């Protein structure tokens, strides 16, 4: 799964630790999500979407869906 977490975080000048604190998770968790090594659960994904004030699909997208749309 792809996500725009790093971009959105950078736009707000938040460090990974800042975001981790706001989401009540570890910095390592934020890093793993940003780098695509870990896909968050639905509740955490909604928490992230609420924090950034965006619909969930504007932050996360399935790689296959993106490829299909491009085709």
């Amino acid at each position, binding site marked *: 799964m792809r996500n725009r977490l790093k971009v959105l975080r950078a736009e707000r000048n938040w460090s990974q*630790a800042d975001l981790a604190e706001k989401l*009540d*998770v*570890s910095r*390592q*968790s934020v890093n*793993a999500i940003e780098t695509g*090594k*870990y896909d968050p659960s639905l509740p955490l994904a909604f928490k992230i979407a609420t924090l950034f004030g965006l619909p969930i699909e504007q932050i996360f997208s399935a790689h296959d869906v993106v490829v299909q749309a491009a085709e």
Partner: protein
Amino acid sequence: MPRETSPKIISNGRRYMGNMAVASVLYTGAVFGGAFAIRNDDLPQWGAILAALAPLVPALLMLRAYMIFINGVDEFQRRIQSEAMLYSAAIVGFGSFAYGFLEEWADFPHLPLIWVFPALMGVWGAAACVMRLRYK
């Protein structure tokens, strides 16, 4: 020093270390106390059983400390711990199973069962470290 994680998670880690330290002190006391008691030749069988099982009480406190810790970490950390436990169970389980056959059929030296649990914990810890590096 940069913040690595949320204050809630830091406090959960500190509580875990505190609970584990208390359980470890009690465990050491139970092991030495049990070993001292078992030297007494007049100790009845039920006393020997009690002395032998005494370290299990603080060991259960360690398990309780770990369960409290796991309930306080985030989902990603919980996944790391779960996967590490799975690897540990597989490695130690199959390792001890294989060694059991070697003992029976290839005259390998007998190893006491008491080492299975520490091996499980040790491999679990090592696997968790490797998993953390993988996700770093």
